[in-house]
């Protein structure tokens, strides 16, 4: 039951989804490498996961915006992971992003550039080894641009396309790429927002769904709550001339 040699790299180890995902892997006996920009906050999650599961959890400093240091970050890891889950992202502030270019750039880089480059580098290493699983947490916001969050949405759209292309390229090498669209999740990122309960997952649900799809069913794209698949099908099928007049 305990795959003693398997290692997870969790990029975004201070986020609520990251914490729950790492916890699910640790409960299944995986060793966890928790990577985050804020090492102290990640240490708090690492201690918690270790206390709950009695597994080995280490903390590694990672800032995906420092793209020239991504190679050395990977070189310094104690092992090349079997699975990488990237949950890094930042909702940002749409209104601010419309006028403050540095904020817009940060949102685009944090949600698209950084995660894509990190996973690119891991993909090369997985190819060289001949095995590996890559999980990217994207967003339903990337499936159609909306006035209320299109900078974030555009970055996530880019990330989704990137994951899709990577999956296409790595399929012959049997390296699995999973795209996760969580829908609404009750996390720090959404704290204070009014979210409809049936559309809103708990972080633990996301962690469980990721583990099941990445290590079990090997699905390619998942919506954590199935209803989001239907909602996005409808939203994507609305003609643009109608869509542009909707308040969404």
């Amino acid at each position: 039951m305990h795959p003693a040699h398997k290692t997870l790299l969790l990029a975004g180890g201070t986020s609520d989804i990251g914490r729950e995902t790492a916890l699910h892997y640790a409960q299944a006996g995986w060793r966890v490498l928790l990577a985050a920009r804020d090492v102290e906050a990640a240490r708090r999650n690492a201690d918690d996961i270790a206390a709950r599961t009695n597994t080995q959890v280490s903390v590694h400093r990672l800032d995906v915006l420092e793209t020239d240091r991504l190679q050395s970050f990977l070189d310094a890891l104690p092992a090349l992971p079997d699975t990488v889950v990237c949950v890094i992202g930042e909702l940002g502030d749409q209104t601010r992003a419309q006028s403050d270019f540095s904020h817009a750039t940060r949102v685009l880089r944090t949600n698209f550039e950084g995660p894509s480059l990190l996973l690119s580098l891991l993909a090369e290493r997985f190819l060289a080894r001949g095995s590996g699983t890559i999980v990217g947490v994207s967003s339903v916001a990337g499936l159609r641009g909306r006035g209320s969050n299109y900078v974030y949405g555009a970055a996530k759209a880019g990330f989704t396309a990137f994951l899709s292309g990577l999956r296409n390229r790595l399929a012959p090498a049997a390296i699995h790429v999973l795209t996760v669209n969580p829908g609404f999740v009750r996390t720090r990122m959404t704290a204070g927002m009014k979210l409809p309960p049936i559309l809103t997952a708990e972080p633990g649900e996301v962690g469980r769904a990721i583990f099941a799809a990445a290590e079990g069913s090997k699905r390619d794209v998942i919506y954590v709550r199935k209803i989001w698949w239907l909602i996005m099908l409808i939203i994507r099928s609305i003609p643009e001339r109608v869509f542009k007049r909707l308040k969404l």
Partner: protein
Amino acid sequence: MMESTEMPMAPVPGITIRRAELAGWGRYPRHPSGLITPTAPADLTWLIAGRTGVIARGNGRAYGDAAVGEQVTLSTRSLNRICAFDRQSGRITVEAGLLLSELLSVVVPLGFFPPVVPGTKFVTIGGMIASDVHGKNHHRDGGFGDHVERLTLALPNGDVLSCARDENAELLDATIGGMGLTGTIVNATFVLKRIETGFLRQTTIVAPDLATAIAALSRTGDATYTVAWIDCLARGASLGRSLIFAAEHAGRLELAASDPAAEAFPPSRLGRLSVPVDLPGWTLNRFSVSAFNEAYFRLGAAKAGEPRLVEWDPYFFPLDGVGGWNRIYGRRGFLQYQCVIPTAQAEPVLSEILERVSRHGSASFLAVLKQLRAGHGLLSFPMEGFTLTLDLPVSEGVFALLDAFDALVVASGGRLYLAKDARQSRSTFEAGYPNLPRMRDLRRATGAGGHISSYQSARLGIQ
């Protein structure tokens, strides 16, 4: 918690303050407050620094207004990490917002159990300390606070202090049972006890009246866990008729003998039932509740005598099986009345109270009798005596009824439990808590006075 809207009060980067109407588990009273949910322990320090009218809130299971800040309420629900856990000794350090239910799901399968648990597992560890909660083993093992080895407290002046028996001991005593009024508990260390199985060997004793029930509780004082359920609608000669449940943690051999196929540590069984909407006020009336009580009493009495094995979750937390059970009392909410009466006076005073409840006809599903020993916190509820717990729906007549009970409690030298209280008067409170002046002095000395306050502390004049 009620409807809330997002409205920044004092804009602080990264922190949202929501104006919300907050209540306790009894859903009475409701008060406006600004709700903040810090996501890291370090944030507590600067969030409380210099504020006034601020109080910490765990899972909101105190019944009244204890966890609603006059200005700001700090939710500890995101401070829910286990910091360290030694699987040899059972020593564990957890953040204050960790739910007991979560702790149990981690430690029970490993053969550990908290030294004390209250009647619901949906409380935070910080809340368990702040209320110095008692369990069915209080007569033997004391309150949860008695088992806290060390805790970290964030004070309004920005200090973060470690409190233990040999370090800031007075502050520790004031914090145990102190309703969050000394500062905000950040984390706590305590030792779990070993259990061989997740089952309890329960013996049921039938007591036809109150005197027999009190005698049976005293007599079963050797048992680790004892508690009595009272049919508080029974009258006349049956006044106070009860079922007494005594229990011990069951050993591995016992379980094997009783059911060789049983899982040694059965998991918690969550959410079998729930109350999705407020039931209309008339659902619970003398007829429906007394029918329930009659059936419950007969069922229990039928099982009397023979010890039987019961899973830990339904044994300790029977009401947790019904999600949102507080909604059965309807939209106006309910009051939980819990008093303790010193041993010598217990029988006459409690029978007077039961007599009046019965006459009043206020439906009460939950009526529990339990023996307590002295507590140690400055404002800890337990004292040597017997505690009675009643649930009463909010109605016109109920406040006068409870005021009359208060007079009986005060005259007997007893007191009311702050974690349940939504309405007692200052004089009732002051009469019941002789260490109040020391608490006030300490609050003045640490700077908590004038800064940390809940609607309850303001109502009761705990300056």
